[in-house]
């Protein structure tokens, strides 16, 4: 089985990379881009039967830093 973990900076945590991307889009002429937040996607190839709780434990322990990041698990 596969799972996809989406990790994003929490609201209220400044994302300077997203801001730089927003500026770059503006300078390319794309108007109306009011905000950009940049995160990461981690794909996991897992043994069948791996539970969502186990994936959540992976997120809490390593994949996300919950001081600054939130995560969302998508099983495929």
């Amino acid at each position: 089985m596969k799972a996809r973990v989406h990790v994003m900076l929490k609201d209220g945590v400044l994302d300077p990379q997203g801001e730089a991307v927003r500026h770059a889009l503006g300078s390319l002429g794309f108007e109306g881009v009011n905000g950009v937040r940049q995160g990461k996607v981690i794909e996991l190839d897992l043994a069948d039967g791996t539970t969502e709780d186990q994936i959540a434990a992976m997120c809490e322990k390593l994949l996300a830093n919950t001081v600054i990041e939130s995560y969302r698990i998508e099983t495929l």
Partner: protein
Amino acid sequence: MRAAVIVYPGSNCDRDMEVAFARAGLDVTRVWHKDTTLPAGIDIVGVPGGFSFGDYLRCGAIAANAPISGALRDHAARGGYVLGVCNGFQVLTEAGLLPGALLRNAGLKYICRTVGLRVEGASVYTDGYGAGTEIALPIAHHDGNYFADPATLDTLEGEGRVAVRYTDNPNGSARDIAGILSENRRVLGMMPHPERAAEPAHGNTDGARLFAHLTTALTAA
């Protein structure tokens, strides 16, 4: 007095930290990240700067879960001293030994230069300078932008746990914080590099007093 410096793949200030400890009079051993115990009788553990595990995932995240981490946590829980510099500070926040996190610099650039700092919180690391003393130390980081929620920042300031502050904030750190202390004031994490400004050949010796005073304080304890 004995010190251990942890070495991760990608550490590059481990030798500098070892030399700084040794010149201050400590007996120093370097410890590989795959070890699961620290040598007996270690008083202080140094977590050095560098790019542990290539900064993959998040700076310090993989190092914080390395096999040596259990022994590092036990050492801190026993009231042992820990000094984390630069990547070492990132490792200590990722390991939960210090609050907050270090984000990408607000200006997005890697910054490598000497910056002004004001020493604040009382500890074996900072008492050699005295609160309010201004010093200069080199920084070299891409992710040194200290972040914590406002309540945590208030606690750190209220308890005098901000060890050093930037006099001219280079990286967007909350409340100009460059280094913080644990609740028992024995764990210090800081982005600036005292070990790179510790002898005349470095062109700056402002960092030497941290190591000298630390050794004196530990020896007297």
